[in-house]
């Protein structure tokens, strides 16, 4: 079984974000493999351990995104593909999905694993677009995955429980962070990852159309900011102060 996992390098969620003078997010921050994708890689490795096969990581980003792929390889994935090209800088969801689809199609995987959404963008639009472009069914928000021959079963998280979904492979699934605890890369894994292949692919290799970007940014404004209120220490009167606020809001 061949499994492709899409991975993304994102600003470290444990560091605070900053804005540049032009209101774009600062890219100078510490960057890491998206924690959600670590869970996708882990799930892929577990499926490989149970059923055999190969795990291929596919990413799009600047050259330094190789570090994110390398992290996944050190966990145990077999090889990586990095789509990198200045022409793809600032790609919207559709262009991202088109580029990923082109690279993934060439691999003809049995299963594509994405995280439900990235930690930085958090809009979750790429996976359904990718599924459509690859002509695959999408089984989303998986908190549990079972493979049985050429069929896959997924527990899809819902507001009040879950749905059990079934489909024949090939298929695309999106996984929640709760699906599997990502393993730590062993020293042996880190050493082995150094010699694993990361193939670099440019825009011209993909054979896709750039298309028109989804939107034109006309400007950026400050949202109406909440004013900072009062900050007090927890002492003898703090609870009374909270009660006073609750009373004013008419909830007690």
């Amino acid at each position: 079984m061949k499994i492709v996992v899409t991975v993304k390098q994102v600003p470290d969620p444990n560091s605070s974000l900053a804005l540049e003078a032009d209101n774009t997010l600062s890219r100078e921050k510490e960057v890491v493999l998206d924690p959600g994708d670590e869970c996708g890689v882990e799930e892929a490795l577990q499926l490989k351990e149970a059923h055999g096969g190969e795990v291929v990581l596919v990413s799009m980003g600047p050259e330094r995104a190789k570090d994110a792929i390398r992290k996944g390889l050190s966990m145990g994935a077999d090889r990586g593909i990095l789509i990198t090209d200045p022409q793809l800088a600032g790609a919207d969801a559709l262009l991202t999905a088109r580029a990923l689809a082109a690279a993934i199609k060439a691999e003809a995987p049995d299963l594509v694993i994405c995280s439900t959404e990235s930690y930085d963008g958090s809009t979750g639009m790429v996976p359904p677009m990718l599924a459509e472009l690859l002509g695959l069914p999408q089984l989303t928000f998986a908190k549990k995955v079972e493979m049985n021959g050429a069929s896959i079963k997924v527990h899809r998280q819902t507001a009040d429980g879950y749905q059990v979904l079934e489909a024949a492979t090939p298929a695309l699934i999106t996984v929640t962070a709760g699906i599997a605890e990502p393993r730590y890369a062993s020293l042996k894994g880190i050493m082995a990852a150094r010699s694993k292949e990361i193939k670099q692919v440019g825009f011209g290799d993909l054979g896709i159309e750039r298309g028109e970007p989804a939107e034109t940014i006309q400007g950026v404004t400050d949202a109406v900011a909440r004013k900072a209120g009062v900050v007090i220490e927890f002492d003898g009167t703090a609870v009374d102060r909270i009660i006073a606020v609750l009373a004013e809001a008419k909830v007690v």
Partner: protein
Amino acid sequence: MAKVWVYAELNEGKLVPATLELMTRARELGDVEAIALGAGAKAAAEALGKHGAKVVHVNEDAAFDDYLAEPATDALASLHEQGPPDLVLFGFTTDSREVAGRFAARLGVGLISNAADLEAKDGGFVAKVPYFGGAKLASMKANSKPAIVLIRPKSFEASESGGTADVKELSVSIDAGSKRAHIVERVVEASEKVKLEEAKVVISGGRGMGGPDNFPLLEDLANALGGAVGASRAVVDAGWVPYSMQVGQTGKSVRPGVYIAVGISGAMQHTVGMKASKVIIAINKDAEAPIMKMADLGVVGDALKIVPALTAAVKAKKG
């Protein structure tokens, strides 16, 4: 008038609140045609008409409830072939965004997601999209035809404008090839006492709660106040509480009368989902946490001591 489509999301045969909310803006932007698919579609047409839809395209084929995303994409695509609209609106919800993504990719056009506002401007549609935790709003003009925009829940208030929709049966042949991601079972794990999105008071816990074993302290406070308990993404990801409790960008958006953030630092992913609350109270051991800068009242201290003391005081006050 612009031709505006609204994808009416049905859950277990009922319209989801996000759909009726976005009708409020949709009807100001043009003539609204809603598309309602699956069980309950015909019954939903009445409410959609009352909220401003002139036409509701319905189809109650069981495939819309039995298979994820693809049959609905087929229906939208075949209606699009009969005559494309100027704008297609979806709620930014789990189910709708999956249909929207596939639909946009099938048409080969981009989309704007996570919009908090939308207006007709400069001969097109301009969305306001929050980023940087909602501190900044980007004005984005949609370039695609049709424009496809996903609107965050709670961005508008649902209100009836009166009216009756013309109900049209949408003819769509669902390809056998689209019946793939089969929903074979629905399992309900927890029934919420007070719905998070509808609660007047929301008490949310984060890492500062120390562990899942301490969440009952928040339940006690919620019960005393008649509120609901939410959580930050960090503790949902850590598996302390189910995803259904997540408040934030991709969790639920709430705007209760009072929001009490307990042991939550105030990462942007979280604050974008609760910053519209009327009153925010933060309880955190760190006086410098970002949440303290947006709270009306911040209390610095140990959440595990403060919450029980507060619960006792609320009970005493209510008698």
